């Protein structure tokens, strides 16, 4: 049995353990948050891992976050090519963002930021902050 979870942490709710699935040829590594896991629960009486009952599975499914419509917004995914090459599908943290800010005098200034956080900070702080304008004002 396998269920898509946001992360193994979701199964901790019922003392379950996660294992990476061989079905996914590119399991995320490091602190990547997405995993396709088989599910087991630790029996409260014996302390041993076992398959969940139907009721436990239902509870796990209810507790788990809904699968993301776009998994690509999350972790990177390792890839391999028969030539021996290794690669990765990247994610939104690698994006560059164009931001336009209208100045008090009406001029439009366009900037390129390397993170969503910086881009959104520039938008929310417009028009006079130093974040939105690389040139300091004092």
């Amino acid at each position, binding site marked *: 049995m396998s269920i898509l979870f946001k992360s193994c942490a979701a199964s901790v709710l019922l003392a379950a353990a996660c294992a990476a699935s061989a079905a996914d*040829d590119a399991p*995320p*590594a*490091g*602190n*990547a948050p997405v995993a396709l896991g088989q599910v087991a629960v630790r029996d409260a009486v014996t302390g041993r891992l076992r398959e969940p009952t139907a009721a436990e599975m239902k509870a796990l499914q209810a507790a788990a976050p809904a699968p993301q419509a*776009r*998994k*690509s917004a999350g*972790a*990177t*995914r*390792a*890839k391999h*090519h028969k*030539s*021996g*090459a*290794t*690669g*990765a*599908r*990247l994610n*939104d943290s*690698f*994006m*560059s*963002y*164009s*931001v*336009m*800010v*209208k*100045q*008090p*005098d009406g001029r*439009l*200034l*366009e*900037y*390129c*930021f*390397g*993170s*969503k956080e*910086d*881009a959104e900070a*520039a*938008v*929310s702080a*417009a*028009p006079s902050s*130093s974040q*939105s*304008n*690389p*040139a*300091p*004002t*004092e």
Partner: protein
Amino acid sequence: MKSVKILALPFALAAIAGAAQAATIVITSRDAPGVGFNDPTPVAPVGGNDGTTLGQQRLNVYKYVAGIWEQNLESTVPITVNAGWEPLSCTATSAVLGSAAAWNAWHDFPGAKPGTWYAQALANKIAKVNLSDGHPDDGSGYGNVDIKTQFNINLGKTGCLDNTPFYLGLDGNAGSQVNFVETLLHELGHGLGFSVLAVNTSNGWRLLPDGSDFAPTGGLPAVWEGFMYDNTAGKTWLDMSNDERKASAINPLKLAWKSDAMVAAANATLTHTPTMKVSTPAPTGSGFYDYSTATFSPPVVTGTSFGALATVPADPVNGGGCLPFDSATTAAVVGKVAIIDRGVCPFTQKVKNAQNAGAVGVILANNVAGALVPGGSDPGVVLRTVGVSLDDGARLKAVVADAAKYGTRGKPGVASDVFAVDPSRRAGADLAGRPLLYTPNPLVPGSSVSHWDVSAFPNLLMEPNISPDLGTTLVPPKDLTKTLLTDLGW
């Protein structure tokens, strides 16, 4: 998924002739029916874009920009770009226009530098095969594409950079609208490889071989790193520790792109460095001083006089020049260029006080290391205003003091200043003629390093500030983008 394949003809012609093959860019859309590229809203043709619906015009810009890149790149493997039009962050006066990135990256493919990360489009070009071909999609429908893009579907509507939509013309006459051609041209540049990509500039860590994260050890360098030469450290990022890369990313005007081809390209593209030429009766102090024009300044024209120099006294409490000038300071600066230290109050306030006192110009001296581009906005400021580094500010104040000794009791000597060019240097390049990368301090994560420095002139496509005076030529003597990509392997 809508797929639009454009300019397939070069494939066939190149195959017949055996010549280098121009790249082909394939655009795919993830827009829902009636949205984005599929928006049926009727529109009038504009600036050479003859689409009759909003969706068609958007797609036409993508095709036009893809065509520009195709003319500049060679590859036997089609380059894939996925596009989506989505709501992005906005206010009435600001907006995220869009974003783009290389969506896959590879190392250790045939023809690659060993153990080195490349953006997928470039990796495919070098390997002569689509490395993602046959790989299962990630569920998104675009997991294997070379470049992912998205742009703001609400731009110009109320609450989203009000009344300032994308200009969808192809002629560059964007007027008061947002030139979508330039924005997309720039962002696709990042996706094609104009980005250090595999280094976290906040800590110098590199991307692990499986691409899962940046880490202090075990990561692989990016193909960029062998070209990134730090003039202070005297070596490239390839040979640096994490801490050295971290320091280099915030080493203003010292990190350069090192290649013989780039020096030649910069020599053909960048003008001689605009500078202030100071003359003094004192035996020392005459010479060139770098400056940056304030964003609120009237234009500074090379070859014109700036004026005699005077110093505004430091004021650690209120800030130099922050208060209306007293009689002594007014007497010192009237008819002269006032040198004022940065600090405490806005630049425009200092300049306004100098202006009210009768000064003819202002030099703002940084109070921290590095160059200074004074920013701000005040329509009432009419004085030409420039910023100089902390070191040059100190030198200029010393020049003023020394010059006074070389006059008469009734008429102290003065140092004077004209706007000139330094024939030994190029604007935006180091002393060896290598163009500089953008390394402000503090760091702007992701933006730092992966752009040209803002001191480059004429303005370049891949500077962090996307200027309204850019064209669509990517090669010298107009631009350095193609030269950098060629260095990487394009």
